[in-house]
């Protein structure tokens, strides 16, 4: 295994296939996808609904396994791992940003940011220090003890970004990160993501909005479970 921080590619997928059986029909959500994403790159995955971009994101996010094909994340073959090992990979190497923010409502901003650290077993005092750093990085130092419901959508997404950064991931996956935000806020969030990318974070974002995709240096357009075009 040639994994680790020295690996050139954050993501390397080869001939990725995902097949669902619906009734007596076989549906190929992914039909042989191959791609390579270098560290530090910012990619947008685009495509119409049903093109397979969500399935792609789920597999890249280690929430799902491909039916066949290989997926190397930072040099590790994760395509055949079991649930517990995939959980571990998500915990250590991945950060998620969702369309609907997905913060835990009963936890404070600080606790939400530190949640991955909690599962990593980092002790409470250290987690709080990290959460404060990250909150100030996304501009929310004054809201540490607020509940998510007390924040605006843009602020919630900032918390989610801070949470995605808390475990210093190899890859950040963003699923329509501006889908629930107005255009002004969308620009703020995208600027923040771009800034993170400039600081060296590898980001893969799924979106169907061309102007949002503009923020990414690379675009992968999917169609019918295949890569239609890369630009």
């Amino acid at each position, binding site marked *: 295994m040639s994994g680790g921080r020295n690996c050139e590619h954050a993501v390397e997928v080869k001939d990725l296939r995902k097949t669902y059986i619906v009734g007596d029909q076989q549906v190929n959500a992914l039909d042989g996808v191959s791609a390579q994403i270098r560290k530090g790159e910012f990619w947008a995955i685009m495509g119409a609904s049903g093109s397979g971009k969500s399935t792609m994101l*789920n597999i890249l*996010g280690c*929430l*799902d396994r491909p039916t066949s094909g290989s997926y190397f994340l930072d040099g590790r073959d994760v395509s055949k791992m079991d*649930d*517990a090992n995939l*959980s*571990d*990979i*998500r*915990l*250590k190497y*991945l950060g*998620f940003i*969702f369309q609907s923010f*997905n*913060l*835990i*409502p*009963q936890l404070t901003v600080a606790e939400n940011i530190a*949640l*991955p650290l*909690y*599962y*990593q*077993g980092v*002790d*409470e005092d250290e987690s709080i220090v990290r959460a404060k750093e990250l909150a100030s990085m996304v501009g929310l130092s004054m809201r540490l003890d607020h509940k998510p419901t007390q924040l605006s959508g843009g602020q919630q997404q900032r918390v989610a970004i801070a*949470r995605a950064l808390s*475990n210093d991931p190899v890859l950040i996956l963003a699923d329509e990160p501006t889908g629930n935000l107005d255009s002004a806020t969308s620009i703020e969030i995208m600027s923040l993501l771009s800034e993170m990318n400039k600081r060296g974070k590898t980001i893969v974002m799924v979106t169907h909005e061309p102007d949002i995709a503009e923020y990414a240096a690379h675009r992968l357009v999917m169609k019918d479970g295949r890569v239609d075009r890369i630009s």
Partner: protein
Amino acid sequence: MAHLSIIKRNIKLGVKNLLLHKLRSMLTMLGLVFGVGSVIAMLAIGEGASEEALSQIRKLGSRNIIISSQKPAEENSLANNNVRMSVYGLLYDDYRRISETIPTILKTVPVKSMQKPCRYGKRHMDLRIVGTTEKWFDLVQRNVIAGRIISRKDVDEMASVAVLTDHGARKLLAAQNVVGSTIRLGGNAYEVIGIVQTESESAGTMQMPDTDVDVYVPISTTRLHYGDIFSQRKQGSDIREQVELHRIIVEVDNERNVKRTAAAIDRSLSISHKKQDYYMDVPLALLRQARATKRTFSIVLGTIAGISLLVGGIGIMNIMLATVTERTREIGIRRAIGAKRRHIVFQFLIETLVLSIIGGVTGIGMGLFIPWVVTLTTGMPTIVTAYSLILSLGISVSVGIIFGIYPAMRASELDPIIALRHE
């Protein structure tokens, strides 16, 4: 240490989640609170009642057999028409025969009871007199408040001495200095030699042998002074009775021999008594009966407790399943972030456990409070045993684990992708 802090944080999180839905958490716990509370309360009341019965029976003496004279049924009806003397009951011969022929008997005490007018100083009143031997005080052990009790020598010499019971002394308005003074019983003078305490409680269906006694005198003396014939006026007719002994109390050498000895006494008495003019009380039999009752009570209680705790547990499971559904999205988020299945199981199990332990502890509070109120209002004794507290807390925890594990497993088995999409 890392584990300990995770447990601590999980408990904190659990409490927080429960506080988020205060009313729901409280209602969920209620089943367990009442279950545990009623178990402890019922055990305490049962324990108190049976302990009271047992201690009263023990006071009667578990190795004792009490044989009492009774007027045969046919004599009773005859006595209404004819003025005649009825002769019945235990005889001095019975006393002698029982004590001499049955080897398992350690002590035999004859008892003669009567009522005589008494005079002490300027006071006149009827006193209940018991004529007995010095052995009475071995079998019915009571505190001697003042002076001394009847001795063997008093019995042998037919001494005119009397021992007052505390309520006998109270009736005469006599203080402790009554010892040494003279009282007159039915015209005969007696020297008061002591005062003893009495047991006033009754033991279930049986009375303590000294419940109705004001004064003890040597049995030989009563026979000398008053003979065996008693007359009293009842409903206008003069009833005369000849009863030699009103009671014989027997002490057996060993609890194992009590039943056999009772049978032997019955056989021995039935030869000379054609009519059933006596009856026997065996405290040990009552003791056994009380124990059996206690066991039955425990089984019934255990069943009720089991059912109520089961209901409480199902209530908890029901709510936890609802909670899992309600928090599907949260589970999805946690899983996406990297929580393993066991983390989710642990989180929900801790929450159920917190719920059931708080319920259990509240239930214990209730279980302590109810018996206290019962004792306060009814005067019934109650005993909360440590074992019932430990048992109920243990059951609460078990209920929490047993009924929490299924919802927790359900939560952990959710597919994170589907869970994240849950609205």
